[in-house]
């Protein structure tokens, strides 16, 4: 029966075999070559030039979590793209922001989204937030070979935990190591500056609106000191992507909302270029 699968056009046996609810497991059985981690790695000398995404930041507030990213992709000292989008909804209650090799990261996100959707459709229920975070770990680990050749992907995962009723943030390292971050987190080249900024500005009782301001301030500070992070581009009307996840689900701020947010910050920075000051004591 398996042999004449193609000629009859019926579903191949692998499609009708009961088993895993994971799309990646299905790909492993049915067409392993389509899985990103299963591609043979060529031997290369030196680093491969490919566009890299830069800074992603996240912060939680009572009732949800905010995930945001700048819009720049760089290749060496060049700006590869000014308006790249690096924050994506993973499903209704979670989102993923990507830093690292853009091409591989976008593919990883696409597969991750599909993995969650596939599970939901097959099982009739969604994965727990921890389960989703662990799934992403596995995918990053699958990219380790590429990462060792300089093509790392390091995402930030944020979501609303429906069971616990709060927003949660997970950060990753290049080997797939996962850690839950309390309060705020950042990844990518500008993350050091973004974290420094949020360290001074973050409070655990901020509102949703204040938290969106916080993350855009942090991205501004990252762009201020890291050449690979793009600041708000008023001339071209390119502003950071800001997403909010609450018990109502995933929402991306409209262009009008994020432009207003970025403009209000620029306005204040004209007076105070280093941004708001935290008290000394």
């Amino acid at each position, binding site marked *: 029966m398996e042999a004449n699968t193609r000629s009859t056009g019926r579903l191949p046996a692998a*499609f009708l075999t009961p088993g895993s609810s994971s799309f990646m497991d299905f790909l492993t059985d049915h067409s392993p070559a389509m899985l990103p981690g299963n591609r043979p790695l060529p031997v290369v000398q030196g680093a491969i030039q490919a566009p890299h995404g830069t800074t992603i930041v996240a912060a939680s507030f009572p009732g949800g979590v905010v995930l945001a990213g700048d819009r720049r992709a760089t290749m060496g000292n060049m700006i590869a793209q000014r308006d790249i989008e690096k924050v994506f909804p993973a499903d209704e209650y979670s989102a993923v922001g990507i830093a690292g090799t853009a091409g591989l990261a976008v593919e990883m996100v696409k597969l991750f989204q599909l993995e969650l959707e596939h599970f939901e459709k097959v099982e*009739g229920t969604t994965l727990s937030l921890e389960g989703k975070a662990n799934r992403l770990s596995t995918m990053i680990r699958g990219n380790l070979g590429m990462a060792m050749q300089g093509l790392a992907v390091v995402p930030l995962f944020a979501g609303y935990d429906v069971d616990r009723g709060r927003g949660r943030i997970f950060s990753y390292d290049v080997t797939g190591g996962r850690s839950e971050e309390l309060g705020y987190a950042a990844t990518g080249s500008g993350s050091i500056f973004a974290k420094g900024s949020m360290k001074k500005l973050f409070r655990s009782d901020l509102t949703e609106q204040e938290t969106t301001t916080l993350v855009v301030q942090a991205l501004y500070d990252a762009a201020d000191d890291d050449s690979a992070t793009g600041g708000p581009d008023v001339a071209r009307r390119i502003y950071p992507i800001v997403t909010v996840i609450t018990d109502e689900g995933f929402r991306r701020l409209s262009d009008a909302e994020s432009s207003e947010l970025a403009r209000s910050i620029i306005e204040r920075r004209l007076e105070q270029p280093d941004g708001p000051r935290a008290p000394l004591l």
Partner: protein
Amino acid sequence: MADRAEYARKGIARGRSLVVLQYADGIVFVGENPSRALHKFSEIYDRIGFAAAGKYNEYENLRIGGVRYADLRGYTYDRDDVTARGLANVYAQTLGTIFSSAAEKPYEVELVVAEVGSEAEGDQIYRLPHDGSIVDEHGSVAVGGNAEQISTFLDQEHRDGMTLAEALKLAVQALSRDTNGSEREIPAERLEVAVLDRTRPQQRKFKRIIGRQLSRLLAADDAASAKTDVPSDEEEDE
């Protein structure tokens, strides 16, 4: 061959019937199902839904096969390249091969694959009987035990552009008719209802209608039905 067809038909007739109807904003699936865990209707992809009557383990297998087919296709090409027509074709080939293969017993299932278009003209409903044929249906379709009688009733009563409440009530009325023509009551908690709603802002148009929203739709009289027709987002998680 006739024996095999008879065998499959008997198996399907043991199951309860279900109906799939077009309404103004999409396609509604209605069936009597005492179980809350074993669904007769499911989401396959963004605009594609699946309904099945007959033997649960067999159609569940086909459903998962369909989800795998659709997800793999969408991942390989693009989400727009997954169509009900393609899926119906694959199901028909699968059922047909199994039906005519002496080594396998025929599946005791009858499937419906439906796709909601951006306009009512783009809606597609395919019925897939156990032997691998495809029937392109318009307006309404019934499968399962009492399907023939229900179809005749629906053909007379169904019209284009019904509201969701109207279509739902017509479906329940059709399902309540016994083989001998008398009517019986089907309580709301024994109904399984799902829609493919083209007005849903999300990419995925499939949605189950349960709990309060279902009772409200069943209770809505015709004057109020236009208002309750568009389920707002707050009602979704009930």
